């Protein structure tokens, strides 16, 4: 080596590095390229650094919602009516699934097989979801599905099983119309409520008390800020806020009375081969609803677990309309049960006195039309109490004709007819109070002198016996008979006895609200009540049911067989019975409705008697604080 170098040195070899033009040029290129990369790096890390760092955090720091337990609903004595049962659902973080199309498709198809959710729905849901969020798939898993998925989990990236509470109704069919159910929030509703913390996959009350008291029952979701890795696995938790459970709602409903009422109504309907009916039992002193039944009902638990298409189709195509809560939304003519309004108006307006004797012919003519009594023979002359007891139509035609439609409508509205009662659930219907103004407004014909638009005396007299276009609901009827029972106070009906927050403090206690006081003197109202007492004490008639059941006929009642479906003679009817008891100091009022009932004395009244039998035997338990 040294010899070689020596040789070079001796030979006078070139003493310096030879920087050829090309070496310098390629060196300059390298310096330029590295310089350009440095400038770009500085731009990325300094100028855009803050925003890209925020993106990095958004990648990995996720806010996980901690669902608040939905408030439990109890009856007035604290008996639970629902529970939050633990259940498992499948959750998917789309981002953590295999990125390549075929692998992901294979996983989605396996999930479809494991859960039974149709492949198209699953694919669409995953494509439409927030890739970093966790998407809840389909209904709760059965135990076998849960096991099968747990076993396959290592081979299913991005998939997890989440435990959560499923609303389970303990009396799903009987209390279905009262409690309603929870279901997936509508997209439009979710957008509207997102400011209040609602998630797009949230379950909300859809009908009944679940919907009416949604804001109380929901509670406040908590959250946890967690750091997740690219597979969606939680690495650590940064901060949390515990959820606040929803309020506990104590309904005014007495569970046992509710069950007894449902049993009585069901038995009555079955005996008379009827398929639908409703009943509302209220406390006439407070307006609290003690029982509310609408038959047929439906299994609300079907909805919370995600109802199948077939089950839903069966419910919607059922001619008996099981999804219709007849107690609040079934609107029917009240028929003869309305006669107390005509009586109160006639007395209070001075058209009659309790002792005024009016004839009860088999028919009367008004404006060239004939209006019949239910009896094809004359019942002779009678006073008001008797007219109520035998339900003489022609007696009340004469009273109504003297009052006129405007006055009659005023009294009807004072008793709460024609107004939605503001119960703590959606879907309460107002019914309808007709008069000449209503007819002109709604006849739909420009010529106000046409028959369709002109109110006739015939309209007035049929209005007086609860027909014409008059409509009411079982809830309306219960409030109306409660007002007769309590001296004329139309009370705000309520389903809520008390609401307590998660720590047990009462946040809302039931308060009796007088919506309206019917302008009627105690004397006049007493005369009407006397007529109602006389009706239930008629031997060989209503009195029979009381005696047969061993229930004292201490109270007042009124039957009604209301025609519906147009005009004519042999129209189909609905049967009504309204009742309050005891006579002196009423503490219960109720309405019984039998759809397509033909004979209210036989079909509707015995149901009320059965309810009363239970009520009398358990009065103290029901009224215990």
């Amino acid at each position, binding site marked *: *080596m*040294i010899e070689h*170098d*020596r040789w*070079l*040195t*001796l030979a006078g*070899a*070139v*003493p*310096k*590095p*030879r*920087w*050829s033009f*090309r*070496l310098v*040029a*390629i*060196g300059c290129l*390298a*310096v330029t*390229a*590295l310089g350009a*990369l*440095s400038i*770009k*790096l*500085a731009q*990325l*890390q*300094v100028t*855009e*650094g*803050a*925003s*890209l*760092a925020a*993106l*990095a*955090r958004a*990648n*990995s*720091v996720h806010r996980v919602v901690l669902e608040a337990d939905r408030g439990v609903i109890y009856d007035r004595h604290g008996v639970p009516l629902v529970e939050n049962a633990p259940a498992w659902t499948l959750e998917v973080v789309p*981002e953590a699934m295999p*990125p390549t199309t075929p692998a992901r498709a294979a996983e989605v198809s396996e999930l479809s097989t494991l859960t039974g959710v149709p492949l198209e729905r699953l694919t669409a849901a995953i494509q439409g979801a927030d*890739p970093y969020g966790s998407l809840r798939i389909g209904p709760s898993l059965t135990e076998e599905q849960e096991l099968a998925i747990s076993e396959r989990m290592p081979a299913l990236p991005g998939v997890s099983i989440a435990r959560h509470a499923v609303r389970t109704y303990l009396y799903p069919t009987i209390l279905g119309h009262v409690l309603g159910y929870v279901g997936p929030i509508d997209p439009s509703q979710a957008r509207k409520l997102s400011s209040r913390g609602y998630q797009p996959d949230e379950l909300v009350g859809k009908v009944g008390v679940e919907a009416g008291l949604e804001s109380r029952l929901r509670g406040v979701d908590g959250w946890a800020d967690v*750091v*997740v*890795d*690219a*597979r969606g696995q939680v*690495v650590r938790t940064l901060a949390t806020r515990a959820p606040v459970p929803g309020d506990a709602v104590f309904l005014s409903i007495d569970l046992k009375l509710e069950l007894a009422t449902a049993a009585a109504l069901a038995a009555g309907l079955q005996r008379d081969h009827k398929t639908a009916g409703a009943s509302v039992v209220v406390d006439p002193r407070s307006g609290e609803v003690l029982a509310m039944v609408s038959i047929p009902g439906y299994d609300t638990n079907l909805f919370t677990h995600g109802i199948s298409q077939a089950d839903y189709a069966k419910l919607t195509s059922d001619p008996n309309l099981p999804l219709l809560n007849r107690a609040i939304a079934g609107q029917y003519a009240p028929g003869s049960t309305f006669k107390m309004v005509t009586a109160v108006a006639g007395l209070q307006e001075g058209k009659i006195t309790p002792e005024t004797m009016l004839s009860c012919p088999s028919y009367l003519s008004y404006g060239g039309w004939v209006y019949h009594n239910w009896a094809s023979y004359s019942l002779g002359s009678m006073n008001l109490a008797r007219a109520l007891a035998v339900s003489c139509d022609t007696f009340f035609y004469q009273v109504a004709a003297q009052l006129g439609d405007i006055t009659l409508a005023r009294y009807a509205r004072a008793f709460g007819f024609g107004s939605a009662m503001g119960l703590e659930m959606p879907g309460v219907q107002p019914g309808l109070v007709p008069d000449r103004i209503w007819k002109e407004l709604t006849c739909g014909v420009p010529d106000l002198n046409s028959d369709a638009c002109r109110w006739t005396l015939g309209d007035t007299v049929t209005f007086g016996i609860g027909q014409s276009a008059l409509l009411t609901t079982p809830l309306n009827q219960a409030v109306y008979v409660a007002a007769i029972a309590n001296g004329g106070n139309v009370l705000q009906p309520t389903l809520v006895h008390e609401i307590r927050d998660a720590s047990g403090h009462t946040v809302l206690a039931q308060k009796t609200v007088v919506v309206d006081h019917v302008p009627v003197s105690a004397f006049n109202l007493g005369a009407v009540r006397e007529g109602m007492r006389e009706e239930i004490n008629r031997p060989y008639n209503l009195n029979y049911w009381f005696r047969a059941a061993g229930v004292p006929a201490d109270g007042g009642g009124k039957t009604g067989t209301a025609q519906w479906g147009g005009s004519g003679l042999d129209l189909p009817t609905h049967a009504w019975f309204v009742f309050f008891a005891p006579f002196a100091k009423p503490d219960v009022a109720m309405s019984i409705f039998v759809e397509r009932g033909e004979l209210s004395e036989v079909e509707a009244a015995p149901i009320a008697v059965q309810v009363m039998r239970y009520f009398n035997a358990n009065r103290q338990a029901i009224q215990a604080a």
Partner: protein
Amino acid sequence: MASMSVWRRLDFAQPAAAALLAVLGVMTIYSANADWTRQVAWIVLGVAAYLAAASLDYRRLLPLAPVMYGGMVFLLVAVHLVGRTALGARRWLSVGGFPLEPSELSKLLLVVMLAAFLGRQSSLSWRRFGIVLALAAPPAALILTQPDLGTTIVFAAILLGMLFLGGGRPAQLASLAIAALVTIPALPYLLHGYQRRRLEIFLNPSSDPLGAGYNLLQARIAVGAGGFFGQGFLHGLQGQLGFVPERATDFVFAIFAEQFGLLGSLLLLAIFGTLLVRLLKTAAVAPDRFGELIAGGVFVMLFVQVVENVGMNIGVLPIAGIPLPLISYGGSATITTLAALGLAQSVVLRRRLVVHQPPATYPEVFDPSAVRLSG
């Protein structure tokens, strides 16, 4: 005497820069939750290759060039015949249980082969230009069809760079440049599906933020999130949580930049710059054209890989699977890089010497103390 002389001739800056890079590489691979112990093993093997290459007189390789060329083509053909397939590409040979990536090794073999051929004459006739292209084409085609676009690009860059350094005429270089310009529009038709997609996504990264554009965006986010000082070693959100893909190989720079920030990134580029300058200087002091072209070829090989890898990590160049030399995880690449640097060191050791003060009369006995390192 002799050994001391060798010691004094050594280019210390070059192995020092390489060692620094290897240490940073192992740290980054460790932070990316990859198998850093294996990388240390690769480095140990690479150091052995470095020492072997440095102590070998590079001039002995000159007659071996045809053999090396044949070996390269043989290995690349073998990959096609018995290679292992992963991620849709057939790139690996199993040698004694270890995966060998011949396309990595072929980069260095190409450098030596071109240096041997181009070093023979100082100018390049069109005929010899044609022979160079004809020699380079078969291995390039074999690599491209594995498919390995990244290595093909490095291959082409080495060819172009060494033709430039090796006396290629302006017209020859221009014709190659024109050929490249003609090929680029045709690339979408020549490329494999995922490669075409990568190119499209480079041109419009937000077109598919969760699919193939994901890598690009996540890497950019990681680099940017580093900021000026970095998130700190082992504290990069993007890297530690696995959002950056291929984070020990192709996107290792993003992981590094997230943890060490602009400061660290510029330091890394400065170390690469030092290494490149030393290689360029090696070319300048090389005693012959073969040595000059070896050093120049190694320079081009490393330079292209650094620029392309960093460029794709920060989103200014399309994604191609090219490792960041000595930083990215990978045995074949690490050993090849260290062997290439060793070869350059071999050129340094055999460089010309500069006489400090030409003596008036030549001494009877040569005094090594009168000899000074030229660097």
